[in-house]
């Protein structure tokens, strides 16, 4: 039940924030903060002292699952179609929930001073997006999963469409249509899967556990798998489905970009790891070379595109696609190191991309432009900002000692055993990453302050956010084992290849 509570608290907090605006426009953000802190408290409790919450193996036994599920709960919803509320979290789920709640807090921090208009509705959308994402990470009924998949979409649409920048209509529309159409393909695939399961067993069910063993008639497996793959590859995103991302990220307000880059992209990767490959192991194995190729193309192509951007947020957005290429590569290598690396990349990229978007958003808030050729020499006027920019840039590039390095290194290690060519090409991506990252620092912070820009340095709230994210990245880089230990049992039960 604790998972349901996490989601309910966010839903309720969102409504509370919306309603409270009438009393005082300052109130919504306070309510949002309280809501997220409460959730964070519960998440930490789950990680540190699960016994306090009464979490034990009893709830698993009820469902007949004795695997690695830490928390499971189930109740009926639409018995006619075998749809049920099945929520569960294992190590991987818990890691991603923690990431979600933590980055929710960060995006709240970035909204704190930036969002001045219609605050109630804004925080409502923010909290509901988070609720949707947690739902995605915990739903184990495919109907329920799809439900949350869409629930996280609409508030995000509102965030972009209302508080976005100059070209928000186009960006919001594109974001919605890409995700929704690919989602519909997934719905079709889910229903086909359920139908095939019904044909072979005579039982209607959307339960993940039941569907894992579905026998799919010859010739259909690939298409069903493709429905899932396209939905997740669009969200991840990977070339050629990445087109929505640069627009959505650059037009969204800073908190929106933080959530998009930090959390929403990870739902795509999560979907691949949890659903696409375990549900269709054989077809996926045949498809893996194609997927890995797409991953490599993503890494190299978008890195090059990123290099040619002048819009700071677009540049960061393209680098996101590039980094997500590593995730695709690692996941489809389906070896222990590869998938572990993908998980680490997801977590670390969540932090570094969120931080970079906060910096870019902060800059835009201060000097009202995202064009890098209008900036320059900002280190002199805003040294704290410069330092943070350098830190998170080198983190994103993959500096040893920080989280991203662990992730990408493991991905290369894991995929090297499967395809030497793919791993070697992907490694080039890390070199290109250094080029496009350093150019940002050079253009924005070094050189001469041509336009005599006066930039207010980071505020206390921002410093706290960046500080927390620095600690997170350092932890991931220095002590990754703490996270690898959590995700390992999950990956084993999903059937990832472990080499001794």
């Amino acid at each position, binding site marked *: 039940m604790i998972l349901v509570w996490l989601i309910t608290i966010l839903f309720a907090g969102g409504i509370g924030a919306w309603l409270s605006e009438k009393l005082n426009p300052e109130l919504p953000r306070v309510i949002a903060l309280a809501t997220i802190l409460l959730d964070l408290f519960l998440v930490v409790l789950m990680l540190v002292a699960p016994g306090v919450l009464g979490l034990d193996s009893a709830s698993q036994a009820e469902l007949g699952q004795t695997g690695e599920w830490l928390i499971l709960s189930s109740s009926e919803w639409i018995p006619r179609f075998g749809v049920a509320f099945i929520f569960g979290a294992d190590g991987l789920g818990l890691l991603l929930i923690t990431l979600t709640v933590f980055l929710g807090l960060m995006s709240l921090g970035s909204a704190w001073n930036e969002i001045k208009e219609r605050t109630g509705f804004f925080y409502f959308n923010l909290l509901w997006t988070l609720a949707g994402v947690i739902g995605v990470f915990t739903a184990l009924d495919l109907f329920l999963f799809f439900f949350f998949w*869409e629930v996280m979409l609409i508030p995000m649409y509102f965030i972009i469409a209302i508080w976005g920048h100059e070209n928000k209509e186009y960006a919001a529309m594109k974001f919605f249509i890409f995700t929704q159409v690919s989602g*519909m393909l997934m719905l079709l695939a889910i229903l086909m899967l359920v*139908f095939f399961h019904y044909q072979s067993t005579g039982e209607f069910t959307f339960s993940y556990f039941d569907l894992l063993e579905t026998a799919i008639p010859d010739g259909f497996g690939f298409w069903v798998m493709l429905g899932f793959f396209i939905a997740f590859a669009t969200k991840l995103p990977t070339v050629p489905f990445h087109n929505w991302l640069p627009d959505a990220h650059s037009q969204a307000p800073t908190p929106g970009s933080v959530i998009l880059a930090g959390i929403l992209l990870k739902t795509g990767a999560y979907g691949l790891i949890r659903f696409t490959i375990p549900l269709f192991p054989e077809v996926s194995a045949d498809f893996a070379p194609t997927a890995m190729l797409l991953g490599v193309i993503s890494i190299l192509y978008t890195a090059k595109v990123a290099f040619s951007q002048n819009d700071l947020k677009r540049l960061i957005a393209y680098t996101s696609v590039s980094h997500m290429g590593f995730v695709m590569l690692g996941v489809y290598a389906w070896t222990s190191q590869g998938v572990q690396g993908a998980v680490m990349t997801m977590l670390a990229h969540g932090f570094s991309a969120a931080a970079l978007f906060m910096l870019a958003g902060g800059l835009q808030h201060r000097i009202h432009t995202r064009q890098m050729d209008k900036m320059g020499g900002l280190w002199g006027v805003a040294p704290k900002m410069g330092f943070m920019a350098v830190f998170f840039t080198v983190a994103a590039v993959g500096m040893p000692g920080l989280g991203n390095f662990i992730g990408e290194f493991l991905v290369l290690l894991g995929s090297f055993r499967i395809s030497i060519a793919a791993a070697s090409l992907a490694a080039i991506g890390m070199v290109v990453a250094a080029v496009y990252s350093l150019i940002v620092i050079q253009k924005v912070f070094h050189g001469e302050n041509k336009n005599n820009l006066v930039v207010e340095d980071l505020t206390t709230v921002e410093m706290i956010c960046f500080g927390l994210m620095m600690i997170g990245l350092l932890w991931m880089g220095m002590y990754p084992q703490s996270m690898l230990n959590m995700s390992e049992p999950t990956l084993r039960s999903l059937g990832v290849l472990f080499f001794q």
Partner: protein
Amino acid sequence: MYSNLIIDLMQIIMLTISTVVVMMTTAFKRDHGLISGLTVFGLFASLLTFVFIQPVLPLEATQLLIIDEYSLFFSNLIIVGAIGVALLAYPYFQNHNVQNEEFYILLMTATLGAVVLACSNHFVSFLLGMEMMGVSLYAMIAYPVHAAKSAKFPLEAGVKYLILSALTSGITLFGIALVYAYIGTMGFDEIPTALEAAGDLGPVFLIGVLMIVAGAAFKLSLVPFHIWTPDVYEGAPVPVTAFLATVSKAAMLAVTLRLLLVSNAIELNVVTTVLTVMAAASIIFGNLLALLQENVKRLFAYSSIAHLGYLLVIIIAAAKIPGALSVEGVSFYMLAYFVMSLSGFAVISALSNSEKEYDQLADFRGLFWRNSWVSAVLITVLLSLAGIPLTAGFIGKFYIFTTGVESELWFLLTMLIIGSAIGLYYYLRLIYIMLQPAEDDTNDPAAVSLPLGVHAVMAAMTAAIIYLGVYPAPMIDTLQSLASAF
């Protein structure tokens, strides 16, 4: 025996009595408030009689009508829709200087026709109901023709509907005659045996069947019989548009589905082929043309064409899967579509009156900030029409996908996905327009205070959309039991 018959027909009898009462009262005292109150009361009374009908189900009330759970469901839906329309009509015609009372009589007769249609089990009652509804609608559509400053074209819409509707009635009648000539029966449930007895039937019989299908397709505004829809939707006063979109569609759909399933016509290859073509064309053309609209009523008209196309997918599926599942799906989708449409037109009606209708896209600019409640209702409706979870529209779309996958209609499912993708664009565009900052608008339509009736319709329908989307299990159980008869 006879007492059962009377109880079963109580809804129809009650509606007839109410119609007469409204008519008589109008003859003696013209009072808009009184008449509209009486109408709503009469409709409510007819609705409530279903409590008594329940125990004696199902029963063939004469050869013409059948009262079972299925017909009762649709009758109730129709009457609820009529109540909604009556509630919307009152504020709409309030400032209308010409006599308004006859409108309610027409509304009652149209509703009566619709209920007869939903209960129909025979070609005679089919035609009777269709004509009763149609003839009342001609007058309803053209009703505000004398309004001094009416910006729209009610007369044009009325005449257009009259001519085309009369033409299709003729075609339907001819089709019925052809079918009767070959198999010698007009009762739906006698058709299968008569068909078997008649053996191999020639093309003329099939042409007859297709003529009847064409008649139904006209009322359901399926491509290529959709031409009237946008003009009539735009020209008619909003409450009548709401009636056309909800009651008239639901009644026609109820009888069409019954006819197709009971008579086994759905198993004829020609019929499924024709339906498939119409479904695909409706989905694609409806959605594509909706993209170009600047008028919200026209937009809803094209979107309704597309949605009826979606519905047709479930009906076509009945050729391969058990009829019960198809009936269940159609009923649910129709219910969902019904509440969405009624709610949507309630919003337009909330902004309009017989003098001026605020139905241009530009009129909705900034509505979310001017009047959050009305615009929240419309956003819910649009999201539901787009089939987003948490709304009734999603469960409806879920039924389409389920039945489509089970009967392996891959072509139609592809059309459905393409159509929905296009659909998203114009639904979102309207939402986006409402989210825009409000311009300085002196004659702000939303500033007018609304009567309770319109609020009640919007609140009830929005609640229904969310309830059906979040917790559909009870309604699904009901529909499952009513569908089990097929």
